[in-house]
């Protein structure tokens, strides 16, 4: 059995990489969302996931919370150690648009699931710079691909 798929719900990943000032997130949400199905298509364990109404562990201080809608969230700083936001977005696009011989079309699978279960996709980009530092430029190929999922894209850029 694939261990990635068996650990799909109610998880908060233990960190392998030190917290970074640059990362992106890919989120699927919806009241009928089943996190296992997203994990099954993308073949990766999410950073956090839960079903609507599910009680999940949000951390030692927050304790257990109840999901008001279904969430499947992956944060790239769990996987990508880079200060280049485009590398983080590249990780997400490769995850979604990868097509290998042994893999069915992930994009088609996601679109089918999103349409059937009323799931929406959202990508966020986080960057924190030094005073006066210019925000990163994002390569259009990444945003074009992600919007084609379709996913809406949000930027959260700021400096000290």
């Amino acid at each position, binding site marked *: 059995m694939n261990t990635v798929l068996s650990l799909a719900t109610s998880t908060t990943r233990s960190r392998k990489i030190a*917290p970074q*000032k640059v*990362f992106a*997130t890919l*989120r699927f*949400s919806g009241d009928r969302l089943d996190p296992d199905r997203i994990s099954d298509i993308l073949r990766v364990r999410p*950073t*956090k996931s839960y079903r609507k109404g599910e009680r999940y562990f*949000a*951390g*030692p*201080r*927050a304790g257990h*919370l109840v999901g*008001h*809608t279904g*969430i499947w*969230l992956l*944060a790239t700083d769990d996987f990508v150690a880079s200060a280049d936001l485009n590398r983080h977005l590249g990780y997400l696009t490769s995850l979604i648009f990868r097509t290998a011989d042994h893999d069915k079309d992930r994009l088609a699978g996601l679109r089918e699931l999103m349409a059937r279960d009323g799931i929406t996709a*959202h990508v*966020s980009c*986080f960057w*924190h710079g030094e005073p006066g530092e210019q925000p990163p430029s994002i390569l259009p190929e990444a945003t074009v691909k992600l919007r084609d999922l379709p996913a809406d894209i*949000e930027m*959260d850029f*700021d400096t*000290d």
Partner: protein
Amino acid sequence: MTSIIWSNPGNPTNEVSRALGVERWQVRRALHRIKQGQGLAGADRVTIWNDGSVTDEHGIVLGNVYDEIS
């Protein structure tokens, strides 16, 4: 006793990070992850308490800043 240290729109200020004893980028990063994990957008208004708790406009706990830093 807990008290509110931030309930404005936009990114938390240096005063918030000082009150929590962490760096500002850590507060921003934690808040970003909490909002994303709750299906919220960056523009959605939340309240930060001096124990690190983050709640929505109805007082429902969304997460804790310290959980996202450690």
